């Protein structure tokens, strides 16, 4: 089977701390070394991005992510109040003889600017985060999104990370935890999503939500089970119908210690290279089956 068609793999979990970044970073390294193909790792956990920390790439570009906030020119404004009428989040209001803008509430959607009948509203940029790009010695291009602290909305930064200039052959996306919009924006449109879980009641409960979310988004998924006790079989409910188990990782103090030092599994433990490469081929096979 050919490995020469583009593939986008999401790595998500539902529950936090199950090993998303552990898998996403090492999977990217495994792909780069086994295929020798261009791999791009997108860190879409923009609230708390950690992939860069584990891969320490050489940075070659850094850009801010800006949104456009409205600004009113009171010389032109007729106080008609149309802007406040169309704003869905009450971020702009007419208060007596003034137009007041609340930047923290503003979505920067542009509705008020469009609606103003006398063009009294213009827009000014506001930085909400940044995206930096770098390259690891193995040839993994890392693109990390980083939400500015205090900003509520991850969407503009996630969108910027996912807007890659030219698609490489393989893209791995490190998703934020949970199943809300930030996770959905990371996972939607991927060819396959790896869900990393652990055999605990929390892991199980959040996995169920993550599987349902993937199904709602039309993304096929499979499971990596992390922190299994030695000799413990994968519990049946960690692989719901149609969701295969792709890889098992035991509870291992060595792995936890290496991770705590910020070392990627693939680099720190040569014995894990083959299983991670196999994971990639499994995902490729399963994603391929789907497109046929």
């Amino acid at each position, binding site marked *: 089977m050919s490995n020469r068609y583009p593939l986008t793999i999401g790595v998500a979990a539902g529950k936090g701390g199950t090993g998303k970044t552990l898998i996403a970073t090492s999977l990217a390294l495994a792909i780069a070394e086994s295929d020798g193909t261009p791999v791009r790792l997108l860190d879409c956990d923009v609230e*708390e991005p950690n992939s860069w920390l584990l891969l320490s790439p050489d940075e070659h570009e850094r850009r801010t992510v800006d949104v456009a906030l409205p600004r009113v020119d009171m010389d032109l404004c007729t106080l008609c109040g149309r802007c406040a009428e169309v704003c*869905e989040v009450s971020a702009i209001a007419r208060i007596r003889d003034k137009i007041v803008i609340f930047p923290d509430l503003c979505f920067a959607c542009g509705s008020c600017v469009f609606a103003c009948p006398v063009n009294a509203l213009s827009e000014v940029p506001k930085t909400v985060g940044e995206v930096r790009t770098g390259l690891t010695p193995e040839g993994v291009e890392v693109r990390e999104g980083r939400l500015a602290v205090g900003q509520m909305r991850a969407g503009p930064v996630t969108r910027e990370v996912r807007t890659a200039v030219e698609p490489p052959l393989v893209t791995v996306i490190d998703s934020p935890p949970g199943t809300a919009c930030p996770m959905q924006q990371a996972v939607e449109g991927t060819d396959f999503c790896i869900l990393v879980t652990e055999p605990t009641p929390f892991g199980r409960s959040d996995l169920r*939500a993550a599987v349902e979310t993937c199904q709602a988004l039309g993304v096929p998924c499979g499971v990596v089970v992390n922190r299994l006790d030695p000799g413990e079989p994968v519990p049946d409910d960690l692989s719901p119908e149609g969701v295969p188990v792709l890889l098992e990782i035991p509870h291992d103090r060595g792995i936890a210690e290496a991770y705590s030092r910020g070392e990627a599994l693939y680099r720190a433990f040569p014995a894990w290279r083959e299983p991670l490469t196999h994971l990639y081929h499994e995902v490729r096979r399963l994603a391929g089956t789907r497109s046929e």
Partner: protein
Amino acid sequence: MAATQSVRRVVILSGKGGTGKTTVTSCFADLTQPAVLVDADVDAANLHLMLTPEIISQREFWGAKVAVRDPAKCNGSGECERRCRFDAITEERVYDSRCEGCGLCVLTCPSGALTLETVLSGHVVEARTPYGPLASGRLVPAGESSGKLVTEVRNVADAVAEAEGLSLQLIDGPPGIGCTAIAALAGVDLALLVTEPSASGLHDLKRVRQLLGHFQIPASLIVNRCDINPETTESLRRWGDEERVPLLAALPFDEAVPRAVRAGVPLTRFAPSSPVSAGLRQAWDAVAAWLWSA
């Protein structure tokens, strides 16, 4: 200031996920009952798994708006796709996960084919537990507006606290620093940060600390699984000293913790004499002393 009547709120946060927020919250619930318990991690809610809840009520929360197209009226102008700043709409479909419900497409559609409709975001659940009333939220699969759902759960918790005359709320927060975390920490008296001694744990913690600084919320720290990396635990202690985030407890890895989670019983009740239980009692005493001295 009279301390007796006013409600105290403590949020448990971490930045990084999976560091033990819910385990800590459940133990504090056990140590301080009765308090109003709040699960603000609405898209990965787990606190109920530790508290043997009996559900009293569950109601729908319709929070988000999304654009809906009437294909019969659409004339294919493509204006919506050109205007939308969230890449949420094409001629073929609306991407609900990206749609912010801003209504710009509705305003600009030349043929009036688009409207905004409110959609089901999730459910707000009220329950009784042996440790106090529990308010929690549950996002529907691929649901929107998780921040608003957290706020709704918090409103329910406030109402319950008032109705039952309870003066403490414990809020199990979500990971991250975005809209759900901000909704979880609004108006709290203290944030308890639970982290682990890892490079990423420390990195994420610093961002939460910065966020709390924005809102001028004091914080204190618990380091979980401190023996995984004693050096980093020490760095966390030093960082806490510098940042005025006092370290209340450094808890070792303890096999009793996963067993308590499997049993669905707070560790302080499941294994009261375990070292982690002892550390958590000490941490809670410090929190309580701080809360009621202010």
